[in-house]
C-alpha cells in the first residue's frame, strides 16, 4: 500500500502550484515557462503569490547569504506536502559564481532540495520534466 505521503503527492501532480524564489537568472527563466509557447498552465501549474498556497518552491539562480535566510523562512511557511526544485547550475554548484565569497555553493546543504535541474538557465522542458519526475518517484522520497 503506498504511503500516505505518496497518495498525497499523486494528488498534487494534477494541480502543482508554484511559488518562485527567483533571483538573478530565475525570473527570466520563468517567463517562457509561463508564456504562451510552453504554457505551464496546461499541466495545471499556476504561480501563487504566497508560499501558503504553494506546493513546489522553485529556487533559481545563485543564493547569497541574505537571500538564503529568507528562502529558508519561505520554505518553512509552505503547507506540508511541499517540494523544493533547484533550478539551474547556480543552485547545484554555485555555477559561474563558484569562487565568489558571498554565494551559497550547494543548496542542499541548507534546504531539503528534492531535485536539481541542470542548465544555465534550464530550459522549460527540463522544468516540466522535473515536475513529472518528482511525482513518479514519490515512493522513494523520504
Amino acid at each position, binding site marked *: 500500500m503506498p504511503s500516505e505521503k505518496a497518495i498525497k503527492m499523486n494528488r498534487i501532480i494534477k494541480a502543482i502550484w508554484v511559488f518562485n524564489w527567483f533571483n538573478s537568472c530565475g525570473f527570466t527563466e520563468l517567463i517562457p515557462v509561463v508564456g504562451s509557447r510552453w504554457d505551464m498552465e496546461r499541466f495545471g501549474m499556476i504561480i501563487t503569490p504566497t508560499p501558503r498556497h504553494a506546493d513546489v518552491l522553485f529556487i533559481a539562480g545563485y543564493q547569497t547569504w541574505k537571500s538564503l535566510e*529568507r528562502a529558508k*523562512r*519561505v520554505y*518553512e*511557511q*509552505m*503547507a*506540508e506536502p511541499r517540494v523544493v526544485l533547484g533550478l539551474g547550475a547556480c543552485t547545484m554548484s554555485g555555477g559561474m559564481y563558484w569562487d565568489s565569497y558571498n554565494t551559497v555553493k550547494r543548496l542542499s546543504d541548507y534546504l531539503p532540495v528534492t531535485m536539481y535541474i541542470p542548465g544555465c538557465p534550464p530550459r522549460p522542458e527540463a522544468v516540466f520534466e522535473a515536475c513529472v519526475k518528482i511525482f513518479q518517484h514519490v515512493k522513494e522520497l523520504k
Partner: protein
Amino acid sequence: MIGSLLSNAGVWMPLAWLFVLVVTWAIVYYIRSRGEARYHKDTEQVRPFLAGHPETSKAAMHVRASNEYWGFMEALKGYYHPLIKGHTGNLNDYICWFICILAIVLVLVISVGV
C-alpha cells in the same frame, strides 16, 4: 406565516433563511472536515508571511485603519475637499450655516404648505 416580515412591497422570513443557513453550514462543515487539519503548530510555519523577512515587531506590522478610506477620499476629492474646507471650526460659521438652511426650509415649508 409567523415571523415573516411583511411590507406592502416586500417579504422576508428570517427563520426560513436561518434554517436554510444552518443546513448549508452543516454541508460546508462536512466538506471542510474532509480536508486535512494538521499543521506544524508553533514552528516557523505559523509566522506571518512577509516575503521571507523576519517579523520585527507586532506594532510595526499593524496597518492603521486611517489609510483605509484613502481610495474613497481620493476618488471623491471634488466632494470631500470643499466639505473639509467648510469645517472651519469656529462656532459662528456653523451657526450661520444653521440659520441659512433653517431659512431655506421655512421658505419651502411655507410656500408648499399654504
